[in-house]
């Protein structure tokens, strides 16, 4: 890793343009496949999430066995994570890896076949949960046990081509985003294998079961979503701002410290639970130390964007990525704070855990993926997003909804937990305390459904090649003359 690829070469040669076009063409089918099927799962997941939040309050609604609240809730979480987040991540990983390695994708068909098997696995898993066959006591491992070999095999079949691409990269092309993507290629299958072999094959885990499940669930956020989301941010920020990443050493430090610390964290949510006390202590310490790589990433991104902040008003990709970065900070801070002894008294296994999960999965990862999709899709479909105002609407609906949702869940968990922690209060009071927040949650979920419908409509138009044919990128706002000057630099340089 001797060079910084996105540091702009003095002039982009016509060969570069041709090569990029060839790479984009080779990745077109698998990337669009993962984006569209991911978006379909996103719609399913948000509808299930809306239904779950509705059934918490309107308990009599939709009285079907398969739509029981206790099944809809895990079905929503798993559809969101494995259906949407992973597939959006696959698309972004494939495209960024191909672009940075400067190699064309040789096996688009294999990737699509593997993607079909992944979808089959998620469908079977969600259907299994709704059909009453799920392991609904294991966090993020709720799919029926039969599904995990299928998911693991299709994941390996997808990422093996990324590793092949990396090893066949043009010499001298090494960049931080590639590291993060490679890390994501290896960490998730490892954690998934370990967790499933121990919990679904060997069993008899006793209290080690929740420890392993918490470790895995935290790993999904910090060893898969964070690497993929940061890979996308490290790629998009220099591209849009036209500047090289501020510090190579800082990004390298943040990468390795994340990788060295995150696998220790997770079990801190079991503070006070009947597990050996060193486990939550070690995990909580690691979770607090994870603030260090977060600060390093923030500093690096801030220094990179410095002087070009107004571009957040113009570029949809940068705006979503920026919001995702804020979500990353919130996720790290909330996870660290809630792992503390004094707060865990009130937040022990409560709605706050859902709030942090939504922060990591939606406020950070999903927003970062939206940013990447707004960047990538015009390049592989050769047309531009239909309407900047609809992107703006998508952004604001999602932003309001997810900030509100996470805050409501955090507050609901705190008030519910502190009501339980009262000597004389009955459980009824705890339920009453959190109910108001849960009513508010329904409206925010409705916002999210609306936002995602707008997004999916736009995406389908692009996939059907019915986007705008004009050559200029679709922007959120018309830039001021000053910003136009900035944009000219970027479109002529990196964005081409």
């Amino acid at each position, binding site marked *: 890793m001797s060079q910084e690829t996105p540091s702009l070469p003095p002039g982009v040669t016509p060969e570069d343009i041709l090569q990029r076009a060839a790479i984009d063409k080779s990745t077109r089918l698998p990337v669009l496949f993962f984006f569209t099927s991911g978006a379909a799962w996103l719609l399913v997941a948000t509808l299930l999430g809306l239904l779950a939040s509705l059934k918490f309050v309107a308990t009599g609604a939709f009285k079907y066995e398969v739509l029981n609240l206790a099944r809809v809730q895990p079905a929503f979480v798993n559809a969101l994570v494995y259906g949407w987040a992973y597939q959006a991540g696959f698309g972004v990983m494939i495209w960024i890896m191909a672009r940075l390695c400067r190699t064309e994708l040789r096996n688009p068909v294999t990737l699509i076949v593997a993607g079909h098997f992944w979808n089959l696995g998620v469908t079977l898993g969600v259907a299994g949960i709704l059909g009453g*066959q799920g392991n609904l*006591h294991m966090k993020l491992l709720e799919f029926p046990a039969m599904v995990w070999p299928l998911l693991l095999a299709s994941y390996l079949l997808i990422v093996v081509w990324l590793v092949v691409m990396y090893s066949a990269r043009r010499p001298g092309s090494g960049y931080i985003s590639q590291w993060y993507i490679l890390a994501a290629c290896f960490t998730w299958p*490892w954690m998934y294998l*370990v967790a499933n072999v121990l919990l679904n094959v060997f069993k008899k885990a006793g*209290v080690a079961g929740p420890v392993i499940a918490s470790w895995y669930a935290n790993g999904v956020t910090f060893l898969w979503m964070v690497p993929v989301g940061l890979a996308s941010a490290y790629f998009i920020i220099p591209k849009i701002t036209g500047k090289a990443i501020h510090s190579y050493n800082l990004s390298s430090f943040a990468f390795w410290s994340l990788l060295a610390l995150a696998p220790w964290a*997770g079990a801190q949510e079991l503070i006070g639970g*009947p597990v*050996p006390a060193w486990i939550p202590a070690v995990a909580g310490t690691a979770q607090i130390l994870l603030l260090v790589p977060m600060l390093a990433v923030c500093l690096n991104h801030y220094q990179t964007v410095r002087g070009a902040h107004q571009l957040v008003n113009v570029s949809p990709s940068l705006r979503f990525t920026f919001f995702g970065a804020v979500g990353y900070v919130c996720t790290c801070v909330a996870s660290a704070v809630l792992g503390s002894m004094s707060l865990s008294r009130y937040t022990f296994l409560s709605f706050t855990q859902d709030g942090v999960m939504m922060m990591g999965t939606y406020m950070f990862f999903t927003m970062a993926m939206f940013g990447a999709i707004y960047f990538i899709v015009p390049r592989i479909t050769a047309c531009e997003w239909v309407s900047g105002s609809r992107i703006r609407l998508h952004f604001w609906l999602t932003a309001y909804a997810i900030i509100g949702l996470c805050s409501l869940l955090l507050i609901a968990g705190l008030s519910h937990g502190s009501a339980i922690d009262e000597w004389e209060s009955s459980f009824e009071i705890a339920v009453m305390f959190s109910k108001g927040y849960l009513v508010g949650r329904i409206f925010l979920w409705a916002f999210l459904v609306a936002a995602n419908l707008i997004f999916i409509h736009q995406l389908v138009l692009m996939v059907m090649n019915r986007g705008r044919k004009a050559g200029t990128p679709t922007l959120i706002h018309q830039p001021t003359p000053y910003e136009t000057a900035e944009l000219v630099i970027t479109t002529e340089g990196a964005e081409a």
Partner: protein
Amino acid sequence: MNSLKSFILTMGACVGVPTIVMTLVPYGTERGRHAVAYQSVPDPANPAAPPKDPEEMKGLYYPVNYSGDRKRGELVYIQEGCAQCHTQVVRPDYAGIDQFKKGSGREQEYAKDQPVAVRQTHPWDYMHEDFAMFGIRRIGPDLANAGYRYLDKDGRPDAAKVNALYQHFYAPRSLRGWSTSPSFKHLFNVVKKEKPEGSADALVIPANLPLEAGMEIVPTDEAKALVEYLLGLKRDAPLPAAIAGTPPQVPAAK
């Protein structure tokens, strides 16, 4: 770090060591856990030491495995998603007040003015479970010692209380208007009464539950197994001195 090999090796070390420490070591500890005898006779290795466990526990072991309906009920508990909202954990006093909440252990009529702490849950309590049923969220009441809630004064299952448990599954709001629990009607069959007095299993339902004349609500085998599982939830047996180290102590009153 240009070499893929050294990258993978470094990453393997970063993730491999915590994997061993945070998953394999706890797992190995649990696999090595075994039931422990109550020692009410002097330790042969150290005859001078006094016996630690009460005399009446002699010959018993902790914990006792369970099977049959309780085990099947555990599966129903898992698949119906009970653990999504119900925990089975009594935290120690430094982490919460679970030990002193009303209903978290056995009925403590005898100690109204001086509540006796319920024992905190311990890894041994979950030894016979494939995955300790801590639960994912504590949105509903804790069930670590739920078995005590359905007993009569003599410590046997109370028919009316058990019927109320079935009613909670069938129509939670008919019992407690504020409950957010989903209804598990699919664990019951609504059938025509074969005898005028109805079958012995049928639910005794209150007036606020509408039911057609001549019909009755009969729990399925799954519902019965689930109730059997819940009735068996008593995670407060005195720990053998070999685990606890010291004789069971009654903590100071609140």
